[in-house]
């Protein structure tokens, strides 16, 4: 029996949300986490059509995209008065809005939810800024426990080359300039991102991260992500699925039908990785 069938239904970390029936959540929640410029969004863009190819409806979501707080966060980041606690809570508001109004409805409808960052980025940024760890862990404790947290891990040097080659400039917030350490963007980026990676690493065990070496090529990373997702999301082509369901229906109605052997999941995965 494939391992995904044994996965418990979705639940929360510490505190239930008022008005949510967790037993209704049928979909799969996959989290892609990791520091800035590690290549998360590129991977999410590739994973979505791959999942859809297998007949899964996919909701992709990410930080500061909520209808409620997305705009406010962007504006606040453009100003120069965004304090660390305010930033943490603004992101938590944004997350709550997306969780309750996008992610949970999608899971109820049986979607695969692919999220670019989750509470761990909010937690890492807060902890890297010296905020109390227990405070932010409890505050974010209404989050759902995902089926998989895929942590794209890289060293700071890998991130730097991606920033320089890919974007051509350092970003104020990605460099943690609000923390006032380092004499320039480069130094600040190195210190801030090292700290973030350290915090992410410290979250890996307690939050059951599946760590993926993101210093590899984008293609290799993609294959690693696919492999990890295949463990929790059913990866069967729509045609095979139709055959299997037909056989199951026939068996239920008492008719004896010899089911065509569905290929082993492994073969399917290999084919998809091409």
């Amino acid at each position, binding site marked *: 029996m494939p391992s995904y069938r044994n996965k418990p239904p979705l639940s929360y970390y510490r505190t239930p*949300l008022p008005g949510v029936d967790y037993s209704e959540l049928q979909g799969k929640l996959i989290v892609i986490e990791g520091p800035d410029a590690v290549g998360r969004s590129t991977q999410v863009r590739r994973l979505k059509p791959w999942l859809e190819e297998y007949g899964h409806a996919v909701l992709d979501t990410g930080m500061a995209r909520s209808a*409620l707080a997305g*705009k406010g966060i962007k504006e606040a980041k453009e100003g120069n008065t965004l304090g660390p*606690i305010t930033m943490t809570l603004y992101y*938590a508001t944004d997350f709550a809005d997306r969780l309750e109004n996008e992610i949970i409805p999608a899971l109820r409808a049986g979607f695969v939810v692919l999220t670019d960052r989750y509470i761990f980025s909010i937690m890492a940024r807060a902890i890297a800024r010296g905020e109390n760890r227990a405070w932010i862990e409890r505050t974010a404790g209404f989050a759902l426990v995902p089926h998989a947290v895929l942590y794209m891990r890289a060293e700071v040097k890998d991130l730097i080359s991606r920033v320089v080659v890919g974007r051509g400039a350092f970003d104020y917030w990605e460099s943690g300039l609000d923390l006032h350490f380092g004499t320039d963007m480069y130094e600040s980026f190195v210190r801030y991102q090292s700290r973030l990676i350290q915090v992410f690493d410290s979250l890996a065990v307690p939050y059951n991260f599946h760590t993926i070496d993101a210093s590899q090529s984008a293609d290799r990373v993609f294959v690693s992500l696919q492999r990890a997702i295949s463990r929790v999301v059913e990866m069967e082509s729509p045609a095979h699925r139709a055959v299997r369901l037909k056989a199951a229906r026939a068996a239920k109605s008492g008719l004896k039908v010899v089911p065509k052997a569905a290929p082993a999941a492994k073969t399917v995965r290999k084919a998809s990785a091409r």
Partner: protein
Amino acid sequence: MSVFLQNRLPGRLIVVEGIDGSGKSTQMSLLSQWLRRRGYAVTFSEWNSSPLVHETTRRGKKKEMFTPTSFSLIHATDFADRLEQYIIPLLKAGAVVCADRYAYTAFARDVVRGVDRSWVRNLYRFALKPSLAFYFKVPLDVALGRILGGRDALKYYEAGMDLGLSRNIEESFRLFQGRILEEYEAMINEMGFHVIDATKSIEAQQKEMRRIVLQEFGRVRPPGVLGTEVRVAELSQ
């Protein structure tokens, strides 16, 4: 474990709490004038007034987008911004900061909305413990009598319409305030409120507040708490 962080800054934080119509804002205004005359630098911070968060709250309310959790979080964000950018710097400068509503408002309202009690208490753990927290104790009917009729039309969240207590907005407001009142009452000992009997005359209430302030602050201004006059005097020397 204490709910808030100890305030080790030279300034003083005074909080007034109570349901709508308890008269707390009137009393705070009278108290601040009195403090100013006594030489304190007095500033105000009102619940839900951060310029950084204002637009988001407005949008959420207008479009009725809030859940109990996001409602609680946006108010905590608003509070955090005021604390980080306004209240703490002023307390460092030695001012008396008067806060019209504080985290206690969230403890009462958000719990009534169905948010977990210990979750919302943890949420505000970064807040500073006030030097004085006054609670204006008033029976529901008295408070309602003061506001209903003599004010603008009730708004959706203000009346707790999102709780679905009643389809009639005034009735919903009544039920909502009643439940908030219960939460406040249950908090009195836990939070160490100075209870002011808000059915007494305005003058009697003010007298009581001033007595408590004098007791807490001492009759002589404590060193480090700079009054406006002190500042001016220093500059002219």
